[in-house]
């Protein structure tokens, strides 16, 4: 018999501090970001006042932290902030900012640090182009339309690009502030912050973190979407009973809830491994990301369907969720590509654990 693999814990429990953190941000978003605020911001995809309030709570600065004050938020902590952000569909560049902040902090050079300070105090927005710059291809950049600067991988260089004028907003299904990055396009300042293998590594890590935090946001989104469906199923009556008593409806909501719960936990697990055993994160982050996307898509599809004709109108909040379940992740391309990423991790030696 082959050697036994090591014994591992399988403990998903949050600490008291983590529960407090999650509750604090849940309360913030619940109070400050009702669906009316999401709708009001759809023209631009950005609510500047809400962004100022969130940054004042330390949502971005906690990502880089202050060693004197007791350190930085872990990736698990950051998923606990991203979840309620997703649940309430906040029109804010939270994930982009955390990813950019981490990159700037890792760079550590003078220009990077200066941008980091401004970012952390919400006096600027820095976006990250998720794919390498390619001639003839103007990639869509999340938060690009509200960005003062975009971090991008151009050839062998990691560049901070400051457009002379705001990048043009490209209207999209999620009403997100997307814009195209054109390497040869609008005038602006280019600052090279890194090159060669360092640039490659920084971008790879940034993409990984963006996927992880997006997975967390989508897990929250899925939970919010299911809750709308459940509330409707309890109160809507047909054939003399609440429609939630009909198995087809109840069961579809159960499956949606199972996806939301599983994606929440899998994202935490992926975050933990990203923090403590990054080799395993190569498999777990794309898994969490893909599962969160599929769970969010299913939850919103079920949510619309359960609410019938009403769910299909623009008056329903569910349609806000429906458009973002796809809109938020698809800026990075076809999610099924993640199966290739997972396959690579398997080829590199990752395998699922044999459990008791």
């Amino acid at each position, binding site marked *: *018999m082959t050697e*036994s693999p*090591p*014994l*591992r*814990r*399988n*403990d*998903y*429990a*949050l*600490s008291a501090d*983590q529960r407090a953190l999650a509750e604090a941000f849940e309360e913030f978003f619940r109070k400050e970001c009702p669906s009316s605020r999401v709708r009001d911001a759809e023209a631009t995809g950005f609510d500047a006042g809400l962004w100022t309030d969130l940054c004042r709570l330390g949502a971005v600065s906690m990502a880089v932290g202050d060693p004197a004050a007791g350190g930085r938020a872990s990736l*698990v902590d950051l998923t606990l902030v991203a979840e309620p952000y997703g649940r309430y569909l906040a029109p804010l560049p939270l994930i982009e900012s955390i990813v950019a902040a981490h990159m700037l902090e890792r760079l550590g050079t003078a220009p990077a640090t200066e941008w980091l300070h401004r970012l952390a105090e919400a006096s600027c927005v820095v976006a990250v182009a998720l794919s390498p710059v390619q001639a003839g291809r103007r990639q869509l950049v999340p938060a690009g339309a509200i960005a003062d600067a975009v971090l991008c991988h151009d050839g062998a260089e990691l560049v901070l690009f400051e457009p002379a004028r705001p990048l043009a907003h490209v209207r999209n299904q999620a009403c997100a502030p997307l814009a195209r990055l054109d390497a040869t396009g609008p005038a602006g300042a280019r600052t090279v912050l890194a090159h060669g293998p360092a640039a490659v590594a920084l971008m790879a890590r940034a993409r990984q973190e963006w996927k992880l935090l997006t997975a967390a946001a989508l897990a929250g989104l899925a939970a919010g979407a299911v809750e709308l469906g*459940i509330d409707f*199923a*309890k109160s809507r009556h047909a054939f003399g*009973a*609440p429609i*939630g*008593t*009909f*198995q087809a409806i*109840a*069961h579809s*909501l*159960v*499956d949606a*809830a*199972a996806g939301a*719960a*599983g*994606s929440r*936990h*899998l994202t*935490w*697990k992926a975050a*933990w*491994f990203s923090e*403590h*055993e990054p080799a395993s994160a190569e*498999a*777990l982050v794309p*898994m969490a990301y*893909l*599962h969160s996307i599929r769970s969010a898509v299913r939850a919103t599809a079920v949510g619309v369907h359960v609410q019938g004709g009403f769910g299909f109108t623009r008056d329903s909040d569910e349609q806000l969720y429906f458009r973002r379940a796809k809109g938020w992740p698809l800026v990075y391309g076809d999610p*099924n590509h993640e*199966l*290739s990423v*997972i*396959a690579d991790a*398997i*080829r590199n030696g990752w*395998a*699922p*654990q*044999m*459990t*008791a």
Partner: protein
Amino acid sequence: MDFGVVELTDEARAFWAELREFLDEQLTDDLRAAVHVAGSDFYEPFQRAMGARGWLMPHWGTDEGGAALDPVRRHILALELSRQAAPINIIDTTAIGAEAVKAWGSDELRAEVLPGVTSGAIRICLGYTEPDAGSDLAAVRTRAVRAGDDWIIKGSKMFTTGAQVSQFSFLLARTNTEVAKHKGLTMFLVPLDDPGVSVGPIETLGGERTNVVYYGDVRITDKYRLGPVDGGWSVLSAPLDEEHGIGTANGQGLGEINGQGAWHNRSLQRIFAAAHRWAVTPDADGDAPIDEQATAARLAQVAMDIEVARSTPGAMGRVVAAELLIQDAADLIDLAAPDSLIARGESGAVEDGTFEWGHRFAPGSAIYGGTVEIQRNIIAQRFLGLPRPLMPSASKQSDPGKG
């Protein structure tokens, strides 16, 4: 939150080494062949050898026939037995009955039964499901009729795996037909050596041998009643809730969070491991299936499903794990087709016939221990707060979900 490697004490390490040595001795080719043929995941010499170590009820005190294992060593035991596919099905059913005997039985009954349980000499099978009552378990019709100080058991039970090798059945019977159906049930430990008991074998699609058991006027004393008369639903529900994944979480952070889903996920892990080996094995030209991107993606999907099923909590975890097992077993037999169709033992079988077995075995996971539909009803009502449907029989009896 902690997914890290556990630092083992020297004692735990020594225990693990002792356990591996024990299993190397016990899990011989003869055992494997005998278990495969008999089909009940039971092998008496193994059960007795486990019993001699106190490992059948490992958390019980040594004075009770257990081994007083702490949670880490208990987990190591479970992990290794599962990893090596040791025959533990009847050990598990016996444990369910044994806990009930310990909790509800008289001193006399405990003395009669428990030493044999912990030694491996006594096995207990589960008499729950009937030919006409599976999902609607509270509707069972096997009767236990009072006759002086005794009870007369009459009826039949279905899917009683292990009855042919067990000494007792932990049996759910109707003791009251005047009240709501779940309020008229009582649990009994029924000796199977009574002449009124007859066991008929049933072969399943998955290869397991189970049984139908007829109880023709089986007379037992009141000693064999477990728990209050008409209070059987609560006596049964604790293990059933455990089966449905509605129990307390493992306090040590060692166990799985997906309830019964862990059992199904283990099967999927086993099939995935075989698929992975198959996929990386090069042919005569040096090409391996995993070199093809579509094949690699399908393998990646199964690996992801394992993680998804592990991360989905409680009763939802059971539903997800069962359905992903079914879906992926079907996909993996496709992947390795046509040789995947050849059974273990036949010439040309792929990976010891694992895909062939997995495809036949998988559907049971969404049925056994309560169908996934019943599970979804429970989740909808207890966890999502959705209103209970009005069932046709509801006008006569109250809902089995309550008390």
